[in-house]
């Protein structure tokens, strides 16, 4: 059985696959984390809207007693920044997946069973 020889270009693609695969897993984990944070923040937002007295808001490592308006402002800020980060992470994951699919086609095309490219 003769296996196709591995050229430097092949090695380069294999390296890229390895790196992107790792990156995709990391981004996905971060995405899940941020999504949870966003869910919590949105839940907090509804509580704050119902609250009529001071809200205890964590800033830094201490709780500050804030009026409903100030708390609302901070929460909106936090929600927006999280949504932006989540959008960026989603795009990153999509880009990785696309390139990974391309690399798979090329490498499986050349090596077939001789290579294993599972995520």
């Amino acid at each position, binding site marked *: 059985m003769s296996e196709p020889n591995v050229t430097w270009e092949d*090695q380069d693609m294999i*390296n890229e696959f390895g790196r992107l695969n790792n990156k995709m897993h990391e981004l996905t984990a971060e995405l899940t984390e941020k999504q949870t944070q966003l869910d919590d923040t949105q839940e907090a937002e509804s509580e704050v809207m119902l609250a009529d007295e001071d809200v205890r808001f964590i800033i*830094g490592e201490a709780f500050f007693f804030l009026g409903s308006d100030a708390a609302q402002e901070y929460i909106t800020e936090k929600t927006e920044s999280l949504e932006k980060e989540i959008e960026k992470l989603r795009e990153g994951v999509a880009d990785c997946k696309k390139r990974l699919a391309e690399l798979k086609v090329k490498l499986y095309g050349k090596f077939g069973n001789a290579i294993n490219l599972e995520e």
Partner: protein
Amino acid sequence: MDSATQRPNLNSFFIEDVAQYMSTQESTEAVLEQLNNEYRKFKYLEGRLVDQRENLKEKIPDIERTLNAVKHLQKQAETQKTNFELTNGLWIEAEIPKAEHVFLWLGANVMVEYSHEEAVTLLSNNLEQGIKSLEKAEDDLAYMKDQITVTEVNIARVYNWGVKQRRTGGAPKVEQ
């Protein structure tokens, strides 16, 4: 490679032509041993970089939290009521009158007084440094991963070559 970033020069060599390379070597076992050694070395270095990265990933949110707190104090117009952690699990209520300065822990049991603006500047710089260091650590980690992948592929190809040699009765004796 990059001379701008000081990467330890451990370019694992990629074997272009296995057969040709092996003809210059003593034995398959010797080559495999050398490759495995390299592999272990790279894995060790990778581990260290991962630790470094995890450290930074913890420090950065910490700096962000402090920065947020200072910015909030900057905005403060009147006395604020807060709950803060006096000690582990013990929270206590306090009133913070409007102040002109904050104190920042700089590490090594040193605490320094700053105006709000100075504190924001210092913390923002630290944050930037931290993020840059994290990026560098990620880069180094990717580089290390490449070295590891190349070594893994080398090992697989040399091993396969060795198996093929034995099957076609290369060097070892052939049974009559």
